[in-house]
């Protein structure tokens, strides 16, 4: 067992990739799903092991092939990503359990086994994004996750052929973003000769004044990452992609994909480029902050006018990503803390919402629109109440984890005296109540008298696990807050080891 665990950081990434290759050849979709579940259970236990390792010994650095840095590629598990690693493993397992029936209804049964192969590819690569310590390695994982997610999104063409256009759009825009990122890597490499993040910090210190090439490189890298994590105005690929994809796919990506990239984005911003304080301040105050505010309002307002519920949730995601980047643009401990808290909480909220909507859509042949779910509160009560809980968390009702996020965001804004921003954020929360109310009204207050159908426990149990965890983390928020404060401390106190 010891051999396994020493390589645990690598295994969490490599194992899903390997099994993906094997599953591609298995004809039976049931067997494929089962193997996926087993793999992910093992994945979760590895993550827990890593967490225990981290709590006892601190930062873990894993060197591939035992090549010492800066020559070799390394994975790093420190305060910043350990929390997300745990959440990732747990959430992915829950989503996979949920996904079986959903896939069967939305994808051709013959292909659903192969869908799990793509699913594991996506999981392995997303985990790689979370763990990697090498800037070019990030590009590789970024592209693997993009390709697998594009394929998964295009599987939605069985239901609606617009999924193909959405997938193509994402392909082009995502590839441009990734390539921008690589250009940035090129500049960084040209100036410092290293690709390892820890070494990059050391090498950059010789250019304490900063050079144009370095700033250009940084800009390319940051913009590229902003494209991939759908920060306004580079978000246009997200709404179609998430709304036409199969529901389980939307769940996975809405909850986790952009978050993993945002963690890396924050790392680069605060660890690597914090040396250039002037540049950092300009970027944060004049670019990230205004764009976040615009994202929040644009996302919320467009969501209010949406009839298609998945598109509504996608635009709401853009607004929520705006909250996260807003928190990160506050250049101190409390802001970064609030950002991490909302990363965790939003993953749960959006995941729960997409899962619930996915189940409601199962009986519908066409798009899930506001009209089509009328009265579903009575037809699918268990799922609808789970949706209610997740929605209440989205608008920030106390006793849900959304309230905790809002709390910390407000506190961060307040302690930095950004009062206008507080007012704007409060206003946007009030606007979010509008689109939430529209959904609730259609679900629970319609006059169609439906009989309650018996719902499939295989589906509603994962949804309720997420809903209950939303309430749990709303009341006992200390674990999430602790993870986030470990994360923010290791970032702000100047890059870990």
């Amino acid at each position, binding site marked *: 067992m010891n051999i396994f665990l020493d390589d645990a950081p690598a295994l969490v990434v490599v194992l899903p990739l390997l099994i993906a290759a094997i599953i591609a050849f298995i004809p039976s979709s049931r067997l494929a799903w089962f193997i996926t579940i087993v793999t992910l259970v093992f994945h979760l236990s590895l993550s827990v092991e890593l967490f225990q390792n981290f709590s006892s010994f601190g930062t873990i650095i894993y060197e591939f092939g035992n090549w010492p840095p800066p020559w070799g590629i390394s994975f790093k598990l420190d305060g910043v990503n350990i929390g997300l690693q745990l959440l990732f493993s747990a959430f992915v397992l829950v989503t996979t359990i949920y996904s079986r029936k959903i896939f069967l209804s939305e994808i051709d049964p013959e292909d659903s086994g192969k869908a799990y192969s793509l699913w594991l590819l996506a999981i392995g690569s997303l985990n790689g994004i979370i763990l990697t310590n090498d800037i070019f390695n990030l590009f590789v994982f970024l592209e693997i996750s993009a390709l697998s997610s594009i394929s998964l999104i295009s599987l939605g063409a069985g239901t609606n052929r617009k999924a193909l256009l959405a997938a193509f759009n994402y392909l082009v825009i995502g590839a441009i973003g990734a390539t921008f990122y690589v250009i940035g890597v090129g500049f960084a490499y040209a100036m410092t000769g290293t690709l390892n993040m820890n070494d990059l910090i050391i090498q950059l210190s010789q250019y304490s004044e900063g050079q144009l090439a370095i700033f250009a490189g940084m800009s390319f890298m940051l913009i590229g990452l902003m494209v991939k994590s759908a920060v306004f105005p580079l978000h246009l690929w997200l709404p179609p992609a998430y709304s036409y994809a199969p529901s389980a796919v939307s769940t996975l990506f809405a909850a986790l994909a952009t978050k993993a990239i945002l963690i890396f984005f924050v790392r680069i911003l605060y660890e690597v480029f914090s040396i250039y304080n002037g540049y950092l301040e300009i970027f944060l105050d004049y670019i990230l902050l205004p764009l976040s505010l615009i994202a929040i309002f644009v996302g919320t307002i467009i969501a209010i006018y949406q009839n298609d519920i998945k598109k509504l949730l996608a635009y709401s995601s853009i607004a929520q990503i705006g909250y996260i980047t807003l928190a990160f643009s506050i250049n101190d401990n409390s802001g970064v803390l609030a950002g991490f808290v909302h990363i965790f909480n939003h993953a749960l909220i959006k995941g729960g919402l997409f899962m619930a909507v996915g189940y409601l859509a199962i009986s519908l042949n066409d798009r899930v629109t506001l009209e089509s779910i009328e009265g579903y509160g009575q037809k699918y009560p268990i799922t609808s109440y789970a949706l209610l809980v997740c929605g209440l968390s989205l*608008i920030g009702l*106390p006793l849900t984890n959304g309230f905790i996020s809002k*709390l910390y965001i*407000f*506190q961060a804004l*307040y302690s930095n005296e950004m009062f206008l921003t507080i007012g704007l954020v409060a206003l946007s929360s009030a606007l979010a109540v509008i689109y939430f109310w529209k959904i609730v*009204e259609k679900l629970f207050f319609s006059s169609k008298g439906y009989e309650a159908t018996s719902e499939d426990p295989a589906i509603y149990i994962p949804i309720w696990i997420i809903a209950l965890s939303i309430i749990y983390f709303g009341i006992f*928020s200390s674990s999430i807050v602790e993870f986030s404060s470990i994360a923010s401390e290791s970032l702000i106190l100047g890059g870990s080891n």
Partner: protein
Amino acid sequence: MTNESLLILGLLTPLFAAFGSYCFKNNINVRDSFGVIGGVITFLISLKIFNGLQAEEQYVINLFTLFNGVDFLFNITPLGSIFSLVASSLWILASIYTVGYMRGAGEKNQTRFVIFYSIAIHAALAIAWSGNLLMLFIFYEILTFSTFPLVGHKQDAESQAAGRVYLSILVGTSLVLFLPAIFWVWLETGSLNFTPGGILEGKFPTEYLIFLVAMLVFGIGKAAIMPIHRWLPAAMVAPTPVSALLHAVAVVKAGVFSFLMVVVYIIGPDYLLQSKASNWLVWLSSFTILTASIIAISKDDLKARLAYSTISQLSYIILGAALATTFALKGASFHIITHALGKITLFFCAGAIYVTAHVKKISELGGLGFKTPMIFFAYTLGALSIIGVPPLIGSWSKLFLVIGSLEADFLFVAILLGISSLLNIYYLLQPVFIAFNKKNIKNINITKAPLTIWPPVITGVGCLFLFFFSNYFLNIINGVVA
């Protein structure tokens, strides 16, 4: 029994009653008795707490920390004990009344009704005993959600529309105004605990206090100040036990109680007086008092008239809070008791009239007084108490409010209260005159429903009887403004 276990028992009893009603849903007598038994237990507990507070006892439970500076805290204040006493004592009578009304009117889904009724009482008690503003908010929302099925009980189109108005106004105002106001207080002071004298002084920028007050008074939609009052008449489509207990006692009182708690224990009366941040509210609540009374005059439906009367009377309490002088606050606190007693009598009577004579409109009350004299006897007592005629208990709270308004140099308010009493006389006593008018006697079949008649008689006589024991209440009310 320790103080903490008393508190916990008091909070859990209504939940046990709800659970009991659910378990015994097939035996209707057992099911309905849970409300009465629960009421008796909570009343005894509230009484013990009421007395205990006078003897300087503390009732505090701190379960855990929710987040920085805010705990899951229960802490009974004098004002809180008043509210819980009122709610629990009237619950007993309302449970008896509910049996008479629901069976007499042949309502369906009685089990669901009784269960949510008990849960709503639990929420009201938790609001009364909450230790900080966030706890109050959480149970305030629970109260809204648990009373919603009661408002929409009949499930016809009218009830559903009413339910929608009810929910959207109350939830909307609380999320958009009340919750941000709570955030604001927490951000400025780092705490939300109810403390005698308030927590804002010195920490909250005085120039913004007026905005905080506005956010709070419009955010606490249950206090029904205009223009946030629309939900109250809409909710009258509910069966009368709901209107009686919840919309004359528990829900609306929770609203004005919350506002009073904020004024007394968060802002602090002295700070509020100094900053003059509530002067505009004196005008607005006066406007509400007058306008609601005028609208009440125009209503022919008895419950609608009583609804607007309630809106008017609630603004008395808000007025007292806005004036923030000693007597005004005493009047406001006392008015919680007196108005609850008086109004529940009136609503009980309205329901009794519906069950016995199947009459809803005032114009059709002709001659009924001779057929059901007890109902109108109770009604008259309740009406006189609300009008403020001694020797009924309502006269005390009105007196204090008048003195309070003079204390604060608002002479016109004192005059207004007088005018309002005159209007009250007209619109509250008009039904009695019609009922005892020999000229318009109609032939109506009277259904017997004694359980709907005794509760209002008890509360009506209570208005008279308790006048002579006002000292008992005044002691603790003095404790509120000490």
